[in-house]
């Protein structure tokens, strides 16, 4: 098999996989792949289009190759959105192309609102995919609560195309808020700046973003106008630093930058994304140096480091979290795992893809 394969239907996709003799590199828009592309390219962009959209039930079913922008435009027309705020990593990873909804799910790519509304995996309520056996498998469905059988939906989200090719996805949606506002806290060092974010996140004021970027701590509030005004006032009264408030587009811009790791797009070097305890973040950043963006009140730390800092980073983490190398030599979508987790992952890989067809480069993280 050579060249690019671009199935137009799920059945065609299954046929291609069933007949594949060698490795396949699954490609949505090619914007998010972490690690190399080995094997014949299998493009999903032909599997495009909305299958069902019920705004009154907050439900969307869409084919995996549908461009993310199309999905977002459709939802915006009904004043709805994907709650998990999918990020655009093209700039920071130096890619071009068109993000697809399948790629977003495969990477479990979730933005700052994760602290309030969860990740892509939390919004995903159903999947259809083609396994390495060439079988079309479905799990979940189109209803918000579903515990019928094992939750392969979660397993597929964030599996980076190592277990199957996503063909159709169902989401639980969220209504767009009436207004949004951001509190900006200036004049604080990382330690107190992050402590303020933890305090906001631990308050009853339902914050939907808590990040620290370019020396400023930012806290987002969304909802009905009266409610946002009230919560801004409450938080303003208790948070330290020089506090100012921006609303509307100015607020949205801040969060697009946090989401897409804008401050890390410039600097050269390895890009790491660390998931850790928020209270550990400042210490970790201080130990490593480099350019840093803190999201989730420090629960997610993205940093650009010189090459070869992997071991030092692991040492600083000391098992209290995990780190993924997004950009740089040896980048892989998975972090280091325990022997048991690796053995189970390898078991799942061979159960779903016994011929090891899918994304061989990414799959190395599973062994």
């Amino acid at each position, binding site marked *: 098999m050579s060249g690019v394969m671009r199935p137009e239907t799920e059945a065609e996709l299954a046929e291609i996989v069933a007949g594949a003799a060698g490795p396949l590199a699954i490609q949505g828009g090619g914007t998010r792949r972490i690690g190399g592309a080995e094997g014949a390219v299998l493009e999903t962009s032909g599997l495009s289009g909305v299958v069902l959209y019920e*705004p*009154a*039930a907050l439900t969307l079913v869409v084919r995996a190759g549908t461009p993310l922008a199309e999905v977002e435009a459709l939802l915006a027309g009904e004043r709805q959105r994907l709650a998990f705020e999918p990020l655009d990593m093209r700039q920071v990873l130096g890619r071009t192309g068109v993000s697809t909804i399948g790629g977003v799910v495969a990477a479990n790519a979730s933005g700052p609102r*994760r602290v309030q509304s*969860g*990740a892509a*995996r*939390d919004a995903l309520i159903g999947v259809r995919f083609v396994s390495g056996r060439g*079988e079309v*498998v*479905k799990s979940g*469905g*189109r*209803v*918000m*609560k*579903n*515990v*019928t*059988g*094992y*939750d*392969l939906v*979660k*397993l597929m989200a964030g599996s980076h195309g190592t*277990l199957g090719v996503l063909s159709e996805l169902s989401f639980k949606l*969220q*209504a*767009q808020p*009436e207004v949004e506002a951001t509190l900006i806290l200036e004049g604080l060092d990382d330690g107190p700046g992050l402590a303020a974010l933890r305090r906001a996140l*631990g308050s*009853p004021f339902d914050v939907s973003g808590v990040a620290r970027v370019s020396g400023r701590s930012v806290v987002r509030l969304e909802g*009905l106008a*009266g*409610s946002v005004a009230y*919560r801004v006032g409450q938080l303003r009264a208790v948070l330290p630093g020089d506090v100012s408030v921006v609303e509307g587009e100015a607020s949205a811009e801040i969060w697009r930058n946090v989401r897409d790791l804008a401050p890390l797009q410039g600097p050269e070097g390895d890009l790491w994304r660390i*998931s850790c*305890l*928020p*209270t550990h973040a400042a210490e970790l950043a201080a130990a490593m140096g480099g350019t840093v963006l803190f999201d989730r009140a420090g*629960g*997610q730390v993205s940093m650009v480091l010189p090459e070869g800092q992997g071991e030092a980073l692991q040492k600083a983490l000391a098992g*209290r979290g*995990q*780190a993924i190398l997004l950009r740089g030599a040896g980048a892989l979508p*998975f*972090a280091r*795992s*325990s022997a*048991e*987790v*690796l*053995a*189970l*992952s390898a*078991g*799942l890989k061979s*159960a*779903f893809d016994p011929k090891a067809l899918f994304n061989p480069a990414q799959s190395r993280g*599973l062994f």
Partner: protein
Amino acid sequence: MDMPQPNARIIARKSSILALLSQVLPPDAVIGDPAETRAYECDALAAYRCQPLAVVLPRTTEEVSAVLRICHAEGVPVVPRGAGTSLAGGSMPTEDAVVMGLARMTRVIETDYENRFIHVETGRTNLSVTQAVEAEGFFYAPDPSSQLACAIGGNIGMNSGGAHCLKYGVTTNNLLGVRMVLMDGTVTTIGGPWDEPGSLDLLGVVCGSEGQLGVVTEAWLRILPKPEGARPVLVGFAENEVAGACVADIIRAGVLPVAIEFMDRPCIEATEAFAKAGYPDCEALLIIEVEGSEAEIAEQLAKIKEIALRHNPVEFREAQDEDQARRIWLGRKSAFGAMGQINDYMCLDGTIPVSSLPYVLRRIGEMSAEFGLGVGNVFHAGDGNMHPLILYNANKPGDLALCEAFGAEILKLCVEVGGCLTGEHGVGIEKRDLMVVQFAPVDLEAQMRVKDVFDPQWLLNPAKVFPLAVSAGRRDAVTTGPGASPRTPGIFEDRKCQA
């Protein structure tokens, strides 16, 4: 309910198995006397019962691991049990199985408010997790109706939901990590107190796997700051259809109540007779709860009221104080008990797209007349999670079978309209044979392959989730020769337990 033929060889070796278990557990942690194991023959689905071989009540992960190692070596099936509150028979034993009760593992290991998690042993009850953190203004969000009694371990097994999951999600959305013992005794940690696993989402598939992949002994759970306040309103309607349309409009409008509960006339009448909550005389009522400060609550309720009034409700009742709020919830919370006063009941929990509510309720009413069995509906309307309670007389021969047939028809209807068999109770024993209605053979095969990886011998929580005919090949491969013939080697067979 068909159950697999128990393994006679295991039953014959009962005393030697008990002796082995007694070597790793204190005397009060091994129960083998048939007079005592009887009480463990069922959970909250008492219609299905099967007395186990033995019951063990470990106190530590190390004891859990030691027991599993023995059962693995001996080929003895193990049925994990939290508090035994499953409505789906999720912890119903088989005659050749050891029940592993986790009720003694209730410690809070760590509470970390700044990082918003609590680390607990999984025998701890759901409500007591919230009780452990509420003094600091936090709570654990998933709140199944049985939250007073149900264990976190069972919640993880079934991916439990609750009335308030419309806003906060279900167990899987609030679970950060687990410590789990695999069937061969290997102790492993999946996830942790941070929110990304950095691996395949094993936690996502463990949650909701009904105790068939491993025994979860500890969990890291997300705790959330308690909202400043909450207030319910009660809205009564003259027709189910109108109530359903009102729900759709509220959701559409972008107001996010934390709960929207629905009760139909039979259920309203039963709860009024039992709990006397003072509900209006109407066909359908909604209980809608919103959260926030006083002003925020008022803002949301004003929107909800405006929408509700467009649907000409027979009553719109706003709670003015704590006591009125309590009374609004009283009937809803008494619904199961109230139906139980009338007769035995079977509680289903199929989920349907919200748009199908009126049609499904009408069809259930028609089927109720066809089968000659009463049914009341009380459910989480915001997410379409139905809870039809079918009334029958357990002491009347043939009634259970009739009830099962009726239940199966309701669940098939749920699938037909685009929904599923179970929204939060789990498949268990109850819906096992209906799985083929929702899933094609390849779908089930994919799920069973996951089990093959975690529990290659299919010893954990046997005879659940997958129809017996579908899982026959796998179960036969291991039940033909436990303790005698060579078994499929597990991937952890040669690993030492890591405690």
